[in-house]
């Protein structure tokens, strides 16, 4: 298949299938001599996993991180860092026989048509589990960025039609990391309602990067927004991304859209901190659209491999809304992209 690696100077390669014995990631290009906070990486893993979050699936799957290479006494050596996550939740023969029926909304149909086979054990590479490997790599990238004064925060700002009005990033709610606690209460309530209806719902995650210097991004094909879009859209549930005022810019006049500047700095941030594909020194701000979970407890029409019509209801260990758990994945992919561009622009010693 190829295309399992992202990044150049700091690169991340993930491997493994959702219900295989292990998932993992190889991180290459890391500077040497950096003391890694392993506990902080494990904490990030816990944010993604089900059960680490009340709105998530109730499945008790533990992502226990094992580091195989690249560290000596907790310090990076500059060699590739291989990390694996062993699945502890595997029941013997715990795989699905739904293989002959294409689940609506899932990658079953396209994988089958393209590759002629389907990983029957819960989606394989297209499973959300794969993102846990990215979270491990992203947690490391975050630490390397924090050392340079760059911090990344993301949170859910919309679930269904409930929209966060505030941006209180210092006091987000604990379930959805929503920067508007009041809105978060309604969001969680909506998710519960949807769960009772055996349905699912999507939302919007906003990400804000503080402390990024001017100069991240390599025109023309390595523009900061282009690479962030690449990184974020590679997350399975993401179907859209917008920077700054995003699609709303198309309804504005130039006189409204331009971020004017005085000697004290920019007067607005419609551009989301990116001009000409290069970070402007302002906060980098973008939003990602998350689709509703595909597996729902409502009958939906599909076909089996032989083309027979069937109405399928897929349930089991699924979240009615994955937004809460996707927050840390968005942060991880952002960190990976920014560190790569940082190394590209300023090198590893800066």
């Amino acid at each position, binding site marked *: 298949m190829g295309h399992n690696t992202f990044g150049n100077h700091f690169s991340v390669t993930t491997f493994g299938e959702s219900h295989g014995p292990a998932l993992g990631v190889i991180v290459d290009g890391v500077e040497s001599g950096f003391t890694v906070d392993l506990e902080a990486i494990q904490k990030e893993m816990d944010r993604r996993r089900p059960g680490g979050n009340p709105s998530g699936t109730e499945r008790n799957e533990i992502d226990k991180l094992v580091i195989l290479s690249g560290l000596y006494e907790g310090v990076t050596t500059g060699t590739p860092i291989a990390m694996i996550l062993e699945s502890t939740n595997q*029941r013997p*023969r715990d*795989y699905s026989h*739904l293989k002959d*029926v294409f689940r609506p909304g899932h990658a079953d149909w396209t994988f089958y048509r393209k590759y002629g086979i389907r990983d029957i054990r819960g989606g394989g590479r297209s499973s959300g589990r794969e993102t846990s490997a990215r979270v491990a790599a992203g947690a490391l990238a975050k630490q390397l960025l924090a050392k340079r004064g760059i911090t990344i925060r993301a949170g859910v700002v919309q679930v269904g039609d409930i929209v966060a009005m505030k941006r209180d990033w210092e006091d987000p709610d604990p379930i959805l990391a929503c920067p508007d606690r009041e809105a978060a209460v309604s969001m969680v309530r909506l998710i519960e309602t949807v769960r009772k209806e055996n349905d699912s719902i999507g939302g919007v995650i906003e990400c804000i990067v503080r402390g990024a210097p001017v100069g991240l991004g390599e025109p023309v094909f390595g523009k900061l927004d282009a690479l962030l879009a690449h990184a974020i859209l590679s997350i399975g549930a993401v179907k859209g991304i917008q920077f700054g005022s995003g699609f709303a810019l198309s309804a504005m006049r130039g006189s409204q859209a331009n971020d004017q500047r005085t000697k004290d700095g920019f007067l607005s941030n419609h551009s989301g901190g990116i001009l000409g594909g290069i970070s402007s020194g302002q906060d980098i701000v973008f939003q990602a659209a998350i689709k509703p979970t595909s597996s729902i407890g409502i009958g939906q029409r599909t076909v089996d491999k032989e083309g027979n019509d*069937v109405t399928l*209801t897929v*349930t089991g260990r699924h979240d009615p809304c994955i937004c809460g758990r996707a927050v840390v994945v968005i942060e991880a992919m952002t960190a990976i992209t920014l560190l790569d561009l940082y190394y590209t622009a300023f090198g590893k010693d800066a």
Partner: protein
Amino acid sequence: MSHIFLCGIKHSGKTTIGKLLAKRLGRRWYDLDREIERKIGEPIRTFYRAFGQEAFQQLEVEVLEAIIGEENLVISLGGGAADNDPLMKMVKERGTLVYLYLEEAHLLERILRGGIPPFLDEEDVEGSFHRLYERRNRRYSKDCNHLIQLPFDQAKEENVELVLSSLGLKE
């Protein structure tokens, strides 16, 4: 909607869910195995051992035929319905076939809670169940109108709600 037929591999909840489903819908419910036993006056296993598969399958068809004269029933089929071609044909013509699907490992775990049942090979419990599961799953997946994946160990009341919403019968 005409009849709702529930099928599934052993211990997938056909009887329990069928009974509750009928109650929720205000319909009459029949359990085909129970109706057969009522007719022959002895346990199915005794009959099966004495007369064999072919005779039993013929009986299944006869008993079902006698029942489905009524309108709008909920009928729980026996675990072996998959192997009975004429029965499956009649089911498909007369109503909607709902397959209560459970993952193989989950189902086996549930079955083994009551010890190793006689239909499994004591020497090769997993293997014999796997073969049974594969054969019947293939048939039910192919023939059913609705395939409903039941979560492992969900309360029966919740399973009934799931079936209702799957069939679009939930207000």
